[in-house]
């Protein structure tokens, strides 16, 4: 593990927050060699916590992937897709359970908690897109997206805004 990754391991970040997704992005960008093995990721993904905001309002985070990096992480005030190719939506409890499961598995979810497992039937997570070719980005880069969220095992998550 590189020194950069070691440093990040010490971080404690709350979920859901822009900083939490930024941590995932930082982890990804610190592991460029792995990204080069997996290949290009070119898409804008939105991760939505449907009831993560004040009063149970949705909170959405838009991550822009380009080449081997996550180049931007933005909190967006609405669950509308905007420039995102697709959104992966789930409620707070589902996100929390998935993150805890990945942490328990030291960076690998069990059979019941992979992104595709949770989203394939449209529940408890849901893939949202307005165009099938843009929705296909979720599949084209699925291993990379899985490893993007798996990186949450490298830092400490505290739950609650």
């Amino acid at each position, binding site marked *: 593990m590189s020194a950069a990754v070691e440093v990040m391991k010490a971080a404690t970040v709350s979920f859901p927050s822009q900083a939490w997704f930024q941590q995932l992005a930082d982890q990804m960008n610190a592991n460029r060699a792995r990204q080069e093995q997996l290949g290009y990721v*070119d898409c804008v993904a939105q991760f939505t916590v449907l009831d993560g905001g004040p009063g149970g309002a949705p909170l959405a985070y838009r991550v822009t992937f380009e080449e081997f990096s996550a180049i931007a992480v933005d909190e967006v005030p609405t669950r509308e897709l905007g420039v995102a190719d697709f959104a992966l939506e789930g409620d707070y409890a589902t996100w929390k359970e998935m993150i805890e499961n990945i942490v328990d598995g030291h960076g690998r979810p069990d*059979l019941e908690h992979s992104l595709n*497992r949770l989203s394939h039937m449209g529940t408890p997570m849901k893939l949202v897109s307005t165009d099938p070719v843009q929705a*296909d980005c979720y599949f*084209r*880069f699925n*291993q990379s997206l899985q490893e993007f969220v798996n990186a949450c095992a490298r830092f400490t998550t505290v739950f609650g805004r």
Partner: protein
Amino acid sequence: MNEPIRVENLQPLDQPYLMDEAQLADYEASYRNDYHAWAQVLGENVERIRRGSYSLHWLNTDGGNWGKRAKPSSRGLTYTDINRVRGYGDIPQRADWFNFAPRGSIREPYRDRMPVVTDYVVTNRDELWADNVITLYEEAKARQWNATKDIPWHELEALPEDLEKATCQLCTFLTEVEFVAGDFPAKWLYRTPQDFLEVKSFLATQLMDEARHQEVFRKRAIAGGGLLHASPGFEWALKAILDAPSHTMGTFLLNLLGEGLVLSVFRSGEMIAKTQVDKEIFRRCLQDEARHVSYGVLELKNYLATHPQREQGIEEMHRFADVGEQVILTAFTEAALIEPVAVLLGGGLKHIDKGMEGLAHMWRMFIDEYLQRCASAGFDRRARCTIPLDLPWGVAK
């Protein structure tokens, strides 16, 4: 007493003779016929070499695109980067070079002396172009993986027999179908003129992807117990793809419909996988498959958008889809596919009924995704779709 067996005494086995004498004779006759064309070139070359003189005509850049250097972008040097250089990126609407002379080279002075490859029959750019084809080619190269070492095979553990057999049967189905998705692009790859090099390059990546898919499912089955049953229904669907009358029709049937459904099977496979090994296999494969599907959607979209008689083009696609959907349905209703999926979905042979309920739910999703892909390509198939929107499971009971 018998003679001892010695190598020199062994008779050759009675094997069928593999060379087709008539084909060899045809080949000889053909090149004798064209002798005046190529032997003249050979004669001039030999004479020049004997004289000890140089031609150096290749230093002359007239009529060429010499001197405009391509610049790499952040990813290296892509087709998009070199296509920006004037003279290289003009993809002809209609190809009229039926040999291997590279697009952008100085080739016009030699046109009359070059052979014609009669197999290059896809002359219309809009029979194969898709706006995402260069992106998908770069992505495919960057996202290759190795079925031998990238799957954690050492973690594979034996499953209860019903689940193992269901997994191995699903893998047998996938092994059977994967290579048509290689043979179909291969068939059209060699019919495509060199001027459409970007599409040829992408099709070559699809060939590699499908080789790997066939490999990984074959390995998974044999590592888990063995291959199980081949099925006539799969075979008819595969033959219908291979026999498609045009590249666009076959690409619709293979990439948009067939691989769209296989992508759904991979996603379902990942969801119902009983081992991390299977999860990783399906996740890796579904990434490749989604590229093939994306090409299929945008190829059809471009074909219809540029069709000189759009209504007629759409009607022809409908006629083709009327047959194609039914033949694909023959595969996707085979017991050797839906039953193992139901067993995995239900969690065992005892729970196959529960699995079929889940499959019925997925079916609706799969067909809806297919219709969305058609609509996105400008091909509204919803009113004419011959595949039932709901799996008619048990309606006759």
